[in-house]
């Protein structure tokens, strides 16, 4: 598990678990309080319904009492009901309808003491029908509201009624009046829109209330006046049901918002954790990449940092280390140079001596002949002239070779592509095994043109020499510009061949002076190339493998004086 992942997981756990616990706690507390508040509201509403029901009963009773008082004073009623005056019978029959309208009742009947309907407001033409249970019910109800299902011309009506009695001329009459219960009254009793009241009585076609929850029931005395009713008196219930939809919707809403908040928190937490982890680990990754790029030929990594934390300190430590490496490398190179110069001086001394020894011997021989046999001097000179020529040639060759080790004398913006072209054409001519792939936008390099030519000549010569005799091999010289973020532009030169390649051991010694794997090699080519490249501030890298060819990469700092001509 990476450091970044560990940071991410740790931060997520540290943030999300407390947040989750807090959310669950808040949600449970809200739900508990909401349910309790809802229950109190339902209880209050039930109590209110109970009180309203009693109030409605009192209101109906008051109206019936007023009607009774009026009837006791009504002479036409007295004549028709008590004295059976036929002329006033129609007045009697129509009385209840008018009284019902005036009193705002939806059911009104006037019956005599035997239970015979003598006037009916809700069903005018049911007069003379017998309801013998009603006089007895008057005693049973004793002033309480009664639920009555009564007959109408169009069907039936269920009403909350009160019964009252009155005496006219010594005769007892029963007044039954009430309000239609199933719609208007129930709607008025239940003011809470989430509560619903339903009357449950025998023979009722009950409606589907499976989606509701019963929260209370008030018993009522029930009287069925419909023809064919099996049980005339029974018990009905005013059932209060609650539609739990609102509470469910409220809970669902809380859940939804809770989940949304949780999801948002998780998302933000994860994003924050990722951001923080990345913020902490990114500088370490950058340091890691820079450190990985360090080698003795590449000590130009910038480890400077403005941070004042541990990462900044680490970066600065690495920068100091690189600086020390850079100084050490320089000293090492200087020491190497001095050693090389000493070796070279000894070698030159040795070589010159070696070249001068035959000459000195020939000159001693000639001197001795001139002294002893002057006449044979010409023939001896002719005889030893070859030795002199060979020695001189040797020395010339030696001089020429050492001349190649001389440093560049001047620097100017050079077109590497042009130099590559000269080397490829002048040395070997078109159609040879050397191919070029040149970057037309290649920037110029500040160098001595001769130095560049020496570098390329050595590399191309080595590459050609490494090719096996016969067709099939190739040498490719390519150039390209390198632009890195925050770094100076550079020029890359690659000389790649398909030759024999080198082993690791051969590669380790390849840059030593006078080391050569070729019979006629001087062993100075790659050594010179390396020094020239380093002198130009560049980097040289060799990738090789036995049998797979060699790839020499040189990267030189570019100058800002413009691109090379294509």
């Amino acid at each position, binding site marked *: 598990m990476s450091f970044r992942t560990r940071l991410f997981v740790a931060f997520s756990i540290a943030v999300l678990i407390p947040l989750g616990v807090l959310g669950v706690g808040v949600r449970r507390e809200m739900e508990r309080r909401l349910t309790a508040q809802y229950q109190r509201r339902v209880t209050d509403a039930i109590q209110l319904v109970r009180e309203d029901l009693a109030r409605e009963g009192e209101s109906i009773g008051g109206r019936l009492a007023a009607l009774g008082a009026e009837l006791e004073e009504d002479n036409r009623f007295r004549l028709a009901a008590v004295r059976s005056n036929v002329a006033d019978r129609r007045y009697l029959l129509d009385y209840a309808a008018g009284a019902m309208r005036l009193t705002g009742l939806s059911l009104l009947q006037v019956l005599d003491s035997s239970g015979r309907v003598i006037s009916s407001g809700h*069903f005018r*033409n049911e007069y003379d029908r017998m309801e013998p249970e009603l006089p007895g019910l008057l005693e049973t109800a004793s002033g309480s509201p009664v639920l009555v299902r009564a007959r109408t011309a169009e069907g039936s009506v269920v009403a909350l009624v009160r019964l009252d009695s009155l005496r006219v001329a010594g005769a007892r009459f029963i007044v039954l009046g009430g309000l239609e219960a199933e719609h208007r009254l129930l709607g008025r009793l239940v003011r809470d829109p989430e509560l619903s009241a339903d009357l449950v009585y025998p023979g009722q076609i009950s409606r589907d209330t499976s989606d509701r929850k019963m929260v209370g029931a008030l018993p009522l005395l029930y009287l069925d006046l419909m*023809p064919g009713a099996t049980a005339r008196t029974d018990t009905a219930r005013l059932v209060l049901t609650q539609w739990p939809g609102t509470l469910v919707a409220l809970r669902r809403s809380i859940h939804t918002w809770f989940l949304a908040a949780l999801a948002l928190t998780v998302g933000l937490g994860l994003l924050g954790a990722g951001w923080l982890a990345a913020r902490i680990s990114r500088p370490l990754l950058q340091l890691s990449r820079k450190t990985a790029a360090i080698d003795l030929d590449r000590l130009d990594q910038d480890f400077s940092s403005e941070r004042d934390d541990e990462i900044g300190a680490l970066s600065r430590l690495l920068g100091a280390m690189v600086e020390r490496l850079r100084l050490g490398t320089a000293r090492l190179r200087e020491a190497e140079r001095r050693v090389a110069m000493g070796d070279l001086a000894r070698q030159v001394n040795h070589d010159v001596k070696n070249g001068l020894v035959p000459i000195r011997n020939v000159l001693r021989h000639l001197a001795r002949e001139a002294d002893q046999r002057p006449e044979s001097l010409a023939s001896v000179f002719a005889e030893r002239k070859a030795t002199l020529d060979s020695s001189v040639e040797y020395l010339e060759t030696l001089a020429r070779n050492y001349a190649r080790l001389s440093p560049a004398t001047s620097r100017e913006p050079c077109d590497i592509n042009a130099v590559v072209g000269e080397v490829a054409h002048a040395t070997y001519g078109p159609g040879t095994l050397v191919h070029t792939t040149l970057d037309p936008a290649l920037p110029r390099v500040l160098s001595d043109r001769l130095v560049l030519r020496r570098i390329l000549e050595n590399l191309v010569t080595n590459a050609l020499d490494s090719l096996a005799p016969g067709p099939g091999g190739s040498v490719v010289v390519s150039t390209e510009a390198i632009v890195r973020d925050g770094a100076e532009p550079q020029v890359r030169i690659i000389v790649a061949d398909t030759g024999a390649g080198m082993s690791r051991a051969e590669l380790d010694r390849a840059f030593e002076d006078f080391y050569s794997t070729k019979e006629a090699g001087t062993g100075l080519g790659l050594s010179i190339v390396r020094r020239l490249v380093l002198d130009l501030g560049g980097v040289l890298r060799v990738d090789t493998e036995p049998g797979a060819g060699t790839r020499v990469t040189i990267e030189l700092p570019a100058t800002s004086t413009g691109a090379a001509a294509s």
Partner: protein
Amino acid sequence: MPRSTNWLRGPAVSLGLLVVAAGISGCGYGSAPSTSPPPTPAEPPEPSACVVTREDSATKDTIAIALAESVDSAHAPLPSNDAERLLFRQRYVSPIRLDCEGGVHSGLATSWTRDSSGRSWTLVLRSDTPALDGEPLTAGRLAAEWRSRETAATTLQWAGVESVLPLDPQRLVVTWARPQESIPEVLADPALAMAVRGGRANYTFVPVSASGGDLRDALDRGADVVQSGDPALVEYAKSRADRLIVPLPWDKTYVLLLPAGSNGLDSIISTDSAAFRSALARDAVHGDSRGAEPPFWWVSEADCARPTPASRPAAQPSGAVVYTRDDRIARDLAERIVALAAAPGITSRGLSAADLLGSLQVGRERGYVLALPRRTAVPCRELASWPSGASVLPLVDTRLTAIVGRDLPRVTVDWDGALRIGDHDTEGKQPR
């Protein structure tokens, strides 16, 4: 008063006043308004007198008629309610006219003769009365009108008329399938009436609303003719000294029609008696009514040929006792029947006239409370809408009361109880 030919502009009029500009100069039988009797209800027309007012010298030239029901000119000349009957009677003239005693008076025809077989009757038409478009009303035009008008053609068919042939512009020969002893009453049927110009009066309809449809408002606003069965209105009209209160002839009989197979109302049928009907009339009905009294015309017309008996779908009568929604008396009767039928599930229900007719033809409901004309010249036409096999229980007879101004010109009562206003019967009663 402008003369108008579009006195029924709209299809329906809920309540209004018909203003009648009567050409009454030199005519009339009544006394002067100054000699009006005290405001007491008049007795029903005596059998020998179908004349409500005989005012001859009235100066009044505009007569307003209050209408308590909707009027649809598309129904003309065959009315569908009392208001249409009153209104159409003032404009449409049938070949002959029957008064409330059954006396025959001239209408479109001034005279008539029968042939020796008694089957063909030749009507001699008026020559001085043009049709509504001003063209002469000839025998050919009348015959063509009867052929083209469905109600007239159907009525003639139900009455047993075989042919209608114009002999010349003035004479029309009507031939029945059976010999007719006297002038057939079908010729007084409104279905055969024609709208004529001039004649008794020119009419212009001026809608005047009465608040809540209360005819007392119309009476207070000067309506000259009001007819109603509402006892409250009659009671109220007694306070008006300038109005005559005239009970009209019994013109309707309410019956309970039970389609074949109807059940649940057996107790009603078993209680059918004169006392039962009288009790209904006395207690159940709001209006001037009496127990239905025979003769009943449908009893002797049971074998009318049904136009399409086989095409009617068979129905199992069930459900309610239905009535025409706007008919208060029918509603009272239906409710009383329901109250008396002490069986569960029997209720009453009001239907529109069209719905009731459609239901009646298939006998879909348990029972129908219908208002039938007390008299009809074409019984089979009435029976045509009944379901086959139905039984009929007569309930009550009803009548309207006319409240008319004492200063009106001659007002008479026709055989079907309709008022005829401003009618100058110069021919008088004619022999049958």
